[in-house]
């Protein structure tokens, strides 16, 4: 299963049968994730405006915090891409450096998001306030939970990189986690547009 011919230019993560299968499987998993987030977006858009007696989004959303979050997450996607670039060049040091920066940016994003959530709750907009805020917190919160899980997962992979160096197995894991990270970035772009920009002009 493991020993399959490959050209010398084949990236490490694609050199084994397991690597190729797992990467394809993860792409399909991301397809399922698209279905999951689509459902959440549809729910959110259906419930827009149903704020009952609570505040509406236009009263609470502030562009500055959201822009910082967006900047942090989008940059982290770029640094994550750099990490893969260094992985392809077999530079373990480069991988550690750029994944480290990616995680730091991800943590920064999470920090601002948590601050934003706490702020809304103080202003009287919580999960229990109205259908609109339920949909808001669950949609944006699901994305945030994905980021949190991703950070934990990537830390585990870093430990394995430390133990084993760059092998077909570890680089497969790094590559798959990078697919996940870029996917979260794409989802955020939709959240930024459909939730925040749309919410502010409502």
């Amino acid at each position, binding site marked *: 299963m493991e020993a399959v011919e490959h050209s010398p230019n084949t990236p490490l993560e694609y050199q084994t049968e397991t690597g190729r299968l797992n990467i394809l499987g993860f792409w399909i998993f991301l397809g399922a994730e698209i279905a999951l987030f689509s*459902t959440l977006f549809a*729910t959110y858009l*259906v*419930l827009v405006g149903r704020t009952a007696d609570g505040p509406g989004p236009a009263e609470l959303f502030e562009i500055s915090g959201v822009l910082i979050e967006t900047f942090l997450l989008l940059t982290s996607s770029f640094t994550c891409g750099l990490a893969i670039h260094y992985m392809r060049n077999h530079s373990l040091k480069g991988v550690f450096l750029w994944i480290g920066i990616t995680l730091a940016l991800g943590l920064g994003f999470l920090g601002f998001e948590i601050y934003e959530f706490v702020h809304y709750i103080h202003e009287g907009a919580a999960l229990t306030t*109205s259908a609109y805020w339920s949909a808001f917190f*669950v949609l944006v919160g699901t994305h945030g939970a994905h980021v949190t899980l991703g950070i934990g997962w990537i830390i585990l992979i870093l430990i394995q990189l430390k133990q*084993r160096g760059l092998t077909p197995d570890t680089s497969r894991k790094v590559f798959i986690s990078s697919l996940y990270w870029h996917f979260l970035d794409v989802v955020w772009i939709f959240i930024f547009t459909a939730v925040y920009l749309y919410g502010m002009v409502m």
Partner: protein
Amino acid sequence: MKLDEFFVTGDPLIYGADVSIALTLIGAIFALTYFKKWKWLWTEWLTTVDHKKLGIMYIIAAVLMLFRGGVDAMLMRAQLTVPDAGFLDANHYNEIFTTHGTIMIIFMAMPFLIGLINVVVPLQIGARDVAYPFLNAVSFWTFFMGAMLFNISFVIGGSPSAGWTSYVPLAGLELSPGVGQNYYLLGLQIAGIGTLLTGINFLVTILKMRVPSMKLMQMPIFTWSSLITMVIIIFAFPVLTVALALMTFDRLFGSHFFTMMDGGMPMLWANLFWIWGHPEVYIVILPAFGMFSEIISTFARKTLFGYKAMVYSMVVIAGLSFLVWVHHFFTMGAGGAVNSFFSITTMLIAVPTGVKIFNWLFTLYKGRIRFTTAMLWSLAFIPNFVIGGVTGVMLAMAAADYQYHNTYFLVAHFHYVLISGTVYACFAGLHFWYPKMFNHRLNERLGKWTFWIFVAGFNLCFFPMYFLGLAGMPRRVYTYGIGDGWMSLNVLATMGGVLMGIGFLILVYNIYYSFRYSPRETTGDPWDGRTLEWSTPAPVPHYNFAHLPEVKGHDAFWIMKEEIKQGKKPEKKPYKPIHMPSYSGVPVVMSVFFFIAGFGMVFSWNWMSILGLIGVLATMVIRSFDYDKGFYVSVEEIEEHEKTT
């Protein structure tokens, strides 16, 4: 919480169930200890990643669930036989139809089919295992623990009672304040994880693990039906995941997605549920179509008529399955334009389905038909399914649906498609592939008794329901008055239900009888089969194929046999070591933690749910650090296996 709130009390039926559960558990523990089988159970079954064994476990679990769901059905029939019966009260009746529906769809039909897919598909495509054997075990165990969580509800805490569709506000906190609805949400959520993983696993398996010589358009039709089913699973199940999660949030954390107050939208639940729910019915019918195609082709001794049309019609059905969901609630007032759209898409599904029916008929045409049990089920399927399909088109007409909606006409329709489609297929497939799983056939004589009694009972039970529906009997009522005039047809239906129960018992006896007395298989090809699974020896070695088979067209094994008949000698090639995955205890332990977390959430015991989730995460970390590469089956072991066949 007091103990008498924790355990369900007051009903003699429940006490009976308590006693039988306790006795079964004690009996199982005693038997395992007495025969010293604990180690065997752990090393051979609980930790297995072998697709054949997982498939068998799926099927055993599904048959148990068929029994449970069947008992529910018998209780309902007992209550409805005569007017004003006092056997079950309204609430108990509600609980029973809810668990009956949920169990039959989620925990019987799907695992039965997924079990057969597990056993058969890798063998049909010449693979030695699935793409992700470990994940396959996770799939099974999460399904199993989800099913167990749902099933204990009737003795601990109380069953859900808002119907398997769980429409809000009935399923909301105010009208369903107990823990029953939580069981529904958590049980389905945990089992749904397994289903999604199965979808990904088998999609990749079929695309990437086929023997290199098998082209897509040479795949056996059952494999094609499984492939298309997996695509539906991957896009439909996340919707259920979200819908269940949102209702869980509503009930446990006070959000307002589906509530009547604070902007909630009860209709949103109905939409989300059926955006998953309608594709779901195709998830349980497409593999059934695939099985019937294989069986009809084998026992008509002809290549399947219109193979490509069969594939494309399934693709079209899969696409349309996502565009028809509103027909489940035409009467909720979405307006003429919306109803017309969904009315037309629904009717369109009859076109590819009709193509398939005619292809089966043309496969039979001029075939030399052998009337085995599996074939009988397949032949009975065609007329019965047509009845279900035609009444489905009647229901699809939105205006007419205002008359049929929520009556026994609908009940009759969906039992006609689900039983004569899915259940007949499960029985047909079980008889057909039984020798691949257990190395002996089911007794044909007993099989035919089961067939005739069950099919007669089925038609006697459900055909009168069409007329009950037209006479105005609503579904989900726990009783009716003598003046309604529904008694005689209800008596007929109950008699049919009893016959179906007897048929099932004969099947169970057949399993025991065949285990004792059936001659063991020697060839691995008991039915003169056409596809690659019949080329494997009996018993199937754990690595499936010593040499990867060579595929030269449709019905690859048939072609091989023809070549041998024409005097071609199979060449002897030397064996090479075969790589296989290691067994692992992580999936079952992880799923137990899922169960603990789910149970904690059902009762809002946060410490328990957190403990369970920590356990789940811990097992994931253990898995992440596991670099086990599997092992190689030595040439000596392969020679040993192949010598005996």
